[in-house]
């Protein structure tokens, strides 16, 4: 199964990258852009045919390594 783990900064945690990108967008003339946040997506294959199982595995990996739960939240999507 294909598993996609979205990892994003918790609400309230400052996003220095997002801030810098927003600033850069403005200086390029995109003045109507705001609330820029940058997240990470980890795509991977899990050797199983069970969507449930794949999702559970993905969540485990996120908790173990892919996300730092002190500052980040995550969610997992599964597709065939």
């Amino acid at each position: 199964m294909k598993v996609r783990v979205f990892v994003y900064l918790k609400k309230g945690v400052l996003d220095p990258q997002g801030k810098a990108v927003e600033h850069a967008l403005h200086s390029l003339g995109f003045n109507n852009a705001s609330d820029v946040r940058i997240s990470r997506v980890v795509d991977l294959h899990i050797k199983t045919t069970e969507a449930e199982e794949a999702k559970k595995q993905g969540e485990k990996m996120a908790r173990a390594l892919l996300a730092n739960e002190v500052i980040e939240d995550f969610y997992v999507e599964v597709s065939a």
Partner: protein
Amino acid sequence: MKIGIVVFPGTNRERDMAQAFQVASGQAPEMLWHQQDNVDGFDLIVLPGGFSFGDYLRSGAMAAHSPIMRAVRQFAEKGGYVLGVCNGFQLLTEAQMLPGALLRNAGMRFLAQDCHLKVEGRDSVFTAGWKSGAVFRAPLAHGDGNYTASRDVLDRLEGEGRVAFRYCDAAGRVKDDDEHINMNGSARSIAGVLSENRRVCGLMPHPENLTEEILGGTDGLPLFSGILEALG
């Protein structure tokens, strides 16, 4: 006194660290490969700077799961002393042995210049070499040094005297929103913190690179002489 320096794939300041302890004590620490799962018999474990596992994903994230880290955690739980510098600090937060996290520098660029630090931590071997309130110079070399933690955690750190070092200017002034002083944008200008029992310390700058006149000064030496004196 037995000191171990942990080497992860991608660690690159282990020799600098060993040299600083050598200058301070005349004795060379031992290098410990990250696959080792035992740190018995050591008095101090040091996690040095570098780019463990390339700092890919997040700085220090993958190293936090190396076999040796289980041993280091147990060592700390039993009251062992642990020092993490730069990548070592990032790693200690990833391993949740210290609170908070280190985000990308506010200016989005790697910072490799000298900063000044104010010594604030109380009752800790890591600050014992200085008088409280002392100011010293130290080199920075990092892309992710922007310390963050929840307000509660920050309040607690401050209340318990667990902010070991804070960024300041040469005269000791702290200004959180001045990019020339608090260069990486850290919350409350925090450059280094202590664990609850004050035996685990993490800091971003590199005192180990200022321990000899010929290398530009000895501002960083009190970190090492202080530890050595306190731990005998």
